[in-house]
């Protein structure tokens, strides 16, 4: 794939009945990455995915997948042909059996892989003759994932793929995703609020908050560069605005000032010295911390 980014949006906006679901989302998902798309419920994750797959029209702004505009009907057909999608409702027909659903789907995709189909049928222990109506939530997710993996897609888009799954089923789903990404070099874009899943398999993360991008980074960069610095003062912590690059949040509570930095500790420490703190402490930050610090909490 020649393009550096498989998914790109610029100032994307979507308003439903006067409610702004997206408020200028600018996002880029690198080709060949596994990108975790994080945000609180209602932050705009599903709306973004719907727009990318032509299931909703943006109010304004630009979005492309494989460099193709998502709001052109002809391009959208092409996008969906090259994309495997696992949505919330899984798009399964209750009246069919597992095998019936597979044959029905395979008929639409000339590049369908029978080899992968058999591999995942076995690995997911789906039971080809079972009726879809009788499948558990985890089974339905695994079947939907099988349908998305076998069609020879260049991009997998998954909306909350592990929500409601037990740990064993979650591990099976994640394992299929990394295995597939390694073998076929596909790009995986998955929304989640399971931070542990994202930390485990993603190499990029995008955090969306209230319809806007809050953080976008390689996960290794995040681990290496995000630090929390705690400064303790003799009296009340001073009201001070840092000039150094990468200061994401400053919180003051009594004698303590806590600084979240996305650019290591040196800049903040250098500047903090002139404030004469009585003690200073630095600690790495987990993805959970970053998530909690960057998304707005309702009050």
């Amino acid at each position: 794939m020649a393009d550096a980014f498989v998914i790109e949006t610029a100032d994307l906006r979507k308003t439903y009945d006067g409610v702004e679901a997206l408020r200028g989302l600018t996002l880029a998902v690198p080709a060949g990455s596994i990108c975790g798309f994080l945000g609180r419920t209602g932050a705009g994750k599903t709306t973004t995915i719907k727009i990318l797959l032509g299931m909703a029209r943006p109010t304004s702004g630009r979005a492309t997948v494989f460099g193709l505009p998502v709001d052109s009907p002809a391009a959208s057909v092409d996008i969906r042909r090259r994309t495997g999608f696992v949505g919330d409702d899984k798009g399964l027909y209750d009246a069919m059996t597992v095998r019936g659903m597979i044959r029905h789907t395979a008929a639409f995709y000339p590049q369908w892989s029978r080899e992968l189909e058999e591999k995942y049928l076995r690995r997911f222990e789906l039971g080809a003759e079972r009726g879809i109506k009788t499948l558990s939530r985890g089974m339905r997710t695994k079947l939907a994932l099988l349908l998305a993996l076998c069609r020879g897609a260049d991009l997998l888009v998954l909306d909350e793929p592990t929500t409601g799954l037990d740990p064993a089923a979650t591990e099976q789903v994640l394992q299929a995703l990394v295995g597939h990404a390694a073998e076929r070099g596909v790009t995986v874009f998955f929304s989640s609020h399971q931070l542990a899943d994202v930390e485990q398999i993603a190499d990029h993360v995008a955090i969306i908050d209230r319809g806007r991008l809050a953080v976008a980074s390689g996960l290794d960069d995040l681990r290496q560069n995000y630090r929390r610095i705690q400064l303790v003062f003799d009296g009340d912590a001073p009201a001070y605005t840092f000039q150094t690059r990468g200061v994401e949040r400053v919180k003051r509570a009594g004698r303590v000032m806590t600084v979240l930095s996305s650019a290591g500790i040196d800049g903040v420490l250098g500047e903090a010295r002139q404030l004469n703190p009585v003690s200073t402490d630095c600690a790495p930050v987990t993805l959970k911390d970053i998530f909690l610090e960057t998304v707005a909490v309702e009050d």
Partner: protein
Amino acid sequence: MMFRPNASSGVPIYLQLMEQVKHAIETGALRAGDQLPGIRPLAEEMVINPNTVAKAYRELEHDGVIELRHGAGAFVTGAAREKKLTDRLRAGQTIVAAAVDKLRARGVTEAEIRRLFEAELTRLTAKGEQRG
């Protein structure tokens, strides 16, 4: 080989993987000429990102610990054992750097840090002499 990354520690997973490979070589679990698992099987087994495994392998090759033979896979180099000393020093440097950062963060000056290190080494030497 048992690689168990900790996804939620602040350390990038590719660095953890590199450390574990180096550790396996130091303990003799991996020897010169041994083949490492392929990127895809290892990513799948550990359920981590294949790009992360590829990055760790590239860095290990850059450090001379492994050799990537095109199409054949990754192999522990003969030089790996000789690398032990430099690796140990490099690991030590990381520890010292972290300690120095912490001290500086607490407002300890460079001269004071130097004195602290020297005092600590002197104390060790003194202890050794007492015993001997």
